[in-house]
């Protein structure tokens, strides 16, 4: 076979292997300093973990200054974020599984779920504090990690955590054996865990309603009438189930205010761009001519009564709608 033919064959059968530089002029080599600046990840096997150390005591000081306001003094707070500490038993540390996770109704904490110590370190390092991420030193991250672990007595008070003993501390984590990848939702060709059939006729069902939205929760997500289109095959249902006609009327007008953009500038009690509804009501409630004057202002726009920012005209509103809106504003408190 001549060289020419074998080359032609090679071109035919070989995949379109890219030449070393298939896209000349695109991108540039990353510099070592640039890689160092961004390559902050710490993997489960601690690849990427920088040198450093911090004690439980040091961690407590950083915690009080930068973390406790959201997470509580002992990581117990559930007010802003779910609790970090709590629910871990000494026996869990022996077993490597947080027993509370098997109990329905238990509040799940970070330390109950945490299976990899690297995860805690990496996350604090990249994303905390909440409003100033990536501002902690490596030593501070070690100290905070140590302090958090001490909250559930995974580490004793005097402990100093460092790159040298992270792997050892990993073996104390209460839920270190609590993760499984043996399921069908990870790999592209994973096998589903539930096999349903596509029955078409006289299928076996009890036909029993086992759960529905409780009456008290129907209004939880606001006025659904104001969350649906105004034309079409359906309408949203009125927000307040079992509301009196007067309440329903108020909800209707409120939804008109929402739709018409009023609430983008006027809040119930606080100033956004324009005065609050309560302020307007307080100023004009006893003024007999106010309703007509305000209606004109809504319709044509106005400026000056509350400052220099003008209110745009709302010419699209019907007179009846404007009247409803103004009356509603004047009864706000």
């Amino acid at each position, binding site marked *: 076979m001549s060289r020419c033919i074998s080359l032609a064959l090679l071109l035919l059968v070989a995949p379109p292997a890219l030449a070393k530089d298939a896209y000349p002029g695109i*991108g540039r080599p990353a510099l070592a300093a640039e890689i160092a600046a961004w390559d902050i*990840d710490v993997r489960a096997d601690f690849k990427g973990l920088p040198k450093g150390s911090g004690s439980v005591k040091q961690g407590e000081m950083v915690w009080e200054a930068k973390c406790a306001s959201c997470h509580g003094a002992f990581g117990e707070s559930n007010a802003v974020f779910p609790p970090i500490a709590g629910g871990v038993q000494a026996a869990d540390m022996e077993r490597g599984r947080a027993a*509370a996770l098997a109990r329905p109704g238990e509040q799940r904490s970070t330390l109950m779920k945490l299976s990899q110590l690297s*995860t805690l370190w990496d996350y604090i390092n990249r994303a905390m504090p909440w409003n100033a991420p990536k501002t902690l030193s490596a030593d501070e991250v070690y100290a905070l990690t140590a302090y958090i672990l001490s909250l559930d007595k995974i580490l004793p008070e005097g402990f100093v955590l460092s790159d040298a003993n992270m792997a050892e501390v990993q073996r104390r984590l209460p839920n270190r054996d609590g993760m499984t990848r043996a*399921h069908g939702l990870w790999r592209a060709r*994973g096998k589903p865990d*539930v096999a349903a059939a596509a029955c078409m006729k006289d299928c076996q069902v009890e*036909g029993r309603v086992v759960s529905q939205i409780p009456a008290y929760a129907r209004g*939880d997500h606001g006025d659904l009438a104001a969350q649906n289109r105004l034309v079409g095959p359906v309408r949203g249902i009125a927000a307040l189930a079992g509301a009196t006609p007067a309440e329903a009327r108020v909800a209707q007008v409120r939804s008109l205010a929402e739709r018409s953009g009023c609430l983008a500038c006027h809040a119930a009690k606080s100033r956004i761009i324009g005065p609050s509804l309560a302020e307007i009501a307080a100023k004009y409630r006893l003024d007999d001519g106010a309703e007509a004057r305000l209606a004109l202002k809504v319709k044509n726009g106005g400026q000056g009564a509350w400052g220099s920012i003008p209110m745009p005209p709302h010419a699209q509103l019907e007179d009846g709608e404007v009247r409803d809106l103004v009356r509603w504003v004047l009864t706000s408190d």
Partner: protein
Amino acid sequence: MTPAGRIRPAREGRRGFLRQALALSGAAGLSGAARAEGDPAILKLPPHSMGLGQPVAARGYGLPSQYESNLQRRQSPGLTRVPQASVSFTPLQGLFGIITPSGLHFERHHQGWWDIDPARHRLMLMGLVRQPKVYTMDDLMRLPAVSRIHFIECGANTGMEWGNAAVPSVQYTHGMLGCCEYTGVRLSTLLEDCGADLKRGKYVLAEGADGASLTRTIAMERALEDAIVAWGMNGEMLRPENGYPLRLVVPGVQGVSWVKWLRRLEVGDAPWDTREEVLHYVDLMPDGMHRQYSSIQECKSVITTPSGGQKLLARGYYDVSGLAWSGRGRVRRVDLSFDGGRNWRGARLEGPVLSKSLTRFNLGWVWDGGPAILQSRAMDETGYVQPQIRQLREVRGTRSIYHNNAIQSWQVAAGGEVSNVQVY
């Protein structure tokens, strides 16, 4: 047209009748109602027929009609306590076809969103590669681009419904869902350009440029198959809330892996076990074990019209409509039941039916004014059938938060009000 004669007199007499008629007129309007003297919407010419309209470019960037402002992305009250680490839901109850308008696309941020200057944005590709590289947006947008339509669904979509029917409308039950045309360069192109070591490099870490610098491990098989490093969304650049100027698109996989504000890709030989892989986006099983790296969004569907929190206008014909999708490929079939799952009829699949994309289905139904329970059940090209909530619970319990792809039931009451229920 809604003949007035179809408004059924209420049993409690004239006052009740009036109240109901008012409520109906408030809900449906009388615009279409035939009156003896004729419809004023026809007889009285409106201003738009008798005056001069708006000029071109009155709005340099067009906006929806003022009458469409009810459709907004919204938060579910009480779901989260901090708006920067929260979710807003797509108003699926009002959307048509399969494409999610960019401005109504759901949001999920872990530490707030940013509008990043694209001229200063960089993508770094490093790790097990022959040549670590830095790309500017200029670089990336010169590479061979692809445009693909794919759905994105948060792993926690429908998560509030594991234990019981919890939220009133499809916006909140299923609204962490979108489907857009994404434009970008295939991740495989970038991996090749840097000479990724595919022998040792079995995983890619994707990292965002935001405060959270959210990180997720992508298996190399997926990275090479169909993942895209995207800048385009529905024909324009990504919206800031969706990762402007650059995000990862991982078709079929839960949204958290579609890292927004993408700044770095690292090739490695083991998964990373990041916070979003250990503490969150892990599915709690009844025995207390967590399933880690649960990623695929299995076949699922939901009827969007009519759906929870809506009221049918009147008896008669409806084109029942909804969405079906599968993270494992194309939707093959969707069946609908109107009697709580006893009997099923095949729905029409509206084209195009694309892999790992939303598929719109429709089916005609004549509502007789009586109670009904509507369900949709999708099957994908692998033969997998969307399960009942009961079947899912038997395997996974009620606390796993993520990957609830159960059949959704909407109960239609005699008055036409539709509500979220679960049936066995």
